[in-house]
């Protein structure tokens, strides 16, 4: 008699439509708004012109076209990728560690990336003689190395390989790597601004190359996290019970950490350490919809992309033609916004 009754927590279509609309509006705004005013009509015409066999007249000069297609578009797309990935990674970390304060940098991905980037900036000045740009590569390797180190440390603890020992190992690794990073940075004052700028994060110099570089990682990692999202709800009842429900908590945690970290490493390698996104986006989604990861993960992917695109619009137009580091914007607009959501919500945050 109950066969046709729906389950109570579903990814309601109106949530998905709403979040998708938010993302679309953000992307359109991101393409339309910039320090250089381009008319929306011309932008539309220019976009339609990319369709084969169509040719419309636009008022855009060659340089305007370059601004639109070489700078603004990749920047917006990169914003979507970075925001989605950091939000999904943040939600994953919160799920596997049952810790609302977990963010993608919890286990040392941020500190490792920072150290890698600093090493690259200090010791491997970018020149065209490198086959690959050493900075993103070093940041990527650093992020993964940091988390791997935390895992090794956390799992060599004799008593109890729990989520808590892993977090503690991550905190230790992050502090250590940050100390190393600061040491290198202080030794070489010439590169201080570059290191500091990287840590605050920026999409300012993004191009299609960066998009192409990270898109495969983001696609794979988001897919894994999305498909496996149900497992995060199981971990919520604790490792012992999750084990008696037929999952291996350690293995689930490892898989989520691997893919959340891989995606985070990829995006921070081109965007720098943009903070706060991984915490406030999943929590906002949770407060407005449901605490179930079946809902939180997909909506965080959509809303996270939108959030970072909006933050980036502010980063480039607030003091135009100057730039504000996007990490500053995410905290500046993110914190008050989150406070409002927190106050007006029904308070289901775990």
């Amino acid at each position: 008699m109950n066969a046709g009754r729906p389950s109570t927590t579903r990814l309601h279509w109106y949530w998905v439509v709403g979040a998708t609309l938010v993302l679309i509006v953000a992307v359109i705004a991101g393409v339309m708004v910039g320090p250089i005013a381009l008319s929306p009509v011309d932008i539309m015409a220019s976009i339609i012109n990319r369709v084969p066999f169509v040719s419309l007249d636009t008022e855009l000069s060659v340089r305007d076209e370059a601004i639109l297609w070489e700078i603004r578009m990749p920047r917006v797309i990169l914003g979507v990728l970075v925001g989605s990935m950091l939000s999904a990674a943040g939600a994953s970390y919160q799920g596997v560690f049952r810790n609302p304060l977990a963010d993608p940098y919890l286990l040392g991905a941020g500190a490792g990336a920072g150290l890698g980037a600093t090493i690259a900036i200090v010791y491997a000045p970018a020149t065209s003689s490198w086959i690959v740009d050493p900075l993103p590569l070093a940041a990527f390797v650093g992020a993964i190395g940091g988390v791997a180190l935390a895992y090794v440390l956390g799992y060599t603890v004799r008593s109890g390989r729990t989520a808590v020992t892993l977090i503690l190992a991550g905190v230790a690794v992050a502090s250590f790597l940050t100390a190393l990073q600061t040491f290198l940075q202080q030794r070489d004052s010439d590169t201080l601004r570059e290191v500091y700028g990287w840590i605050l994060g920026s999409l300012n110099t993004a191009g299609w190359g960066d998009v192409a570089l990270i898109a495969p990682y983001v696609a794979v990692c988001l897919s894994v996290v999305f498909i496996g999202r149900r497992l995060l709800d199981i971990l919520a009842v604790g490792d012992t019970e999750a084990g008696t429900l037929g999952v291996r908590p350690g293995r689930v945690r490892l898989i989520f950490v691997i893919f959340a970290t891989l995606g985070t490493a990829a995006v921070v390698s081109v965007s720098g350490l943009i903070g706060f996104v991984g915490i406030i986006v999943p929590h906002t989604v949770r407060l407005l919809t449901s605490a179930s990861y079946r809902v939180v993960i997909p909506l965080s992917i959509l809303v996270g992309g939108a959030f970072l695109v909006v933050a980036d619009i502010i980063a480039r137009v607030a003091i135009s033609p100057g730039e504000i580091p996007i990490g500053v914007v995410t905290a500046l607009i993110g914190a008050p916004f989150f406070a409002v959501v927190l106050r007006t919500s029904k308070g289901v945050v775990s």
Partner: protein
Amino acid sequence: MFRRLIPLVAVVAMVGAACGSGDSDDSRPPATQTTTSVPRTTSTEPQEPTTTTEAVDGGFPVAIDAPNGMVRIESKPERVVSISPTSTEVLFAIGAGEQVIAVDSMSNFPTNAPVTDLSAFTPSVEAIASFEPDLVFLSFDPGDIVAGLEAIGIPVILHGTALSVDDAYAQWEQTGAATGHFAEAVGLVADTVVNMETEFDSLPEQEVAMSYYYELDPTLYSVTSATFIGELLGPSGMMNIADAGDPDGSGYPQLNAEYIIASDPTLILLADTKCCGASGETVAERPGWDTLTAVVDDSVVELDDDIASRWGPRIAELVMDVVEAMLELEPSNA
């Protein structure tokens, strides 16, 4: 990270110096004047000799009104330590190089400077004191380095980042006065002024004002006209595109990539060639930058980061590089 300094007031009194100079050149200021009175616009006057004998200086003790307070130097220093790449360049340029016993690890010019592993960014009182200096130049005091050295009786002159060209000149002259090379220092200032003016004078009138983008690093940090570099390049008549991008007046705004493309500066000046590997090629590879006139016309100027980040005597070379690039452009610009 760019420290604001109280403007230098300069050398006061007690300096014997140029009064007894052999060449009775009226344009040479008497040493008892404050250095701010050194004429900066001497384009109509003959170039002055840069070398004077040490004998003309030599009146010690001197009191130097340095940014860190009045510094009294009892006798001509013979064990000078420079923890500032700029001071190192100045010391050697004014003939005080032989008195320098140690310089910091970043002091890579001139190449015969006695480089040590002393750090300019995190200087240590003990490490500096171990050289038993009788005068120390610093560009940065992160803590109590000045107080620490003074406490053990070592005179210190803190010459921080110059905020203006006059600021730099005053530092050079103080450096001269403190080491017994005041006349050479004054000569160096005058030479630099003349050389740079000669350079700028060689520029024809610009029918359409040129503009420049000065890059500090590949994340598009730049400098405005209010900075030392901006002031230095002011007489070129070029517009600085960063001026619009600095509403909060930091002097060092990060510019938006779209804005740089839309501004289409006549010249792109790269001060991040050594630190960050920027070059004409890397700039051309940046998304959208291939549409820039400066890239198409090959007027991307690769400056020497070291010169551009210091406020030493080689600023004239920087001006020369920029003027040269402007002159190459002239035919097409006219």
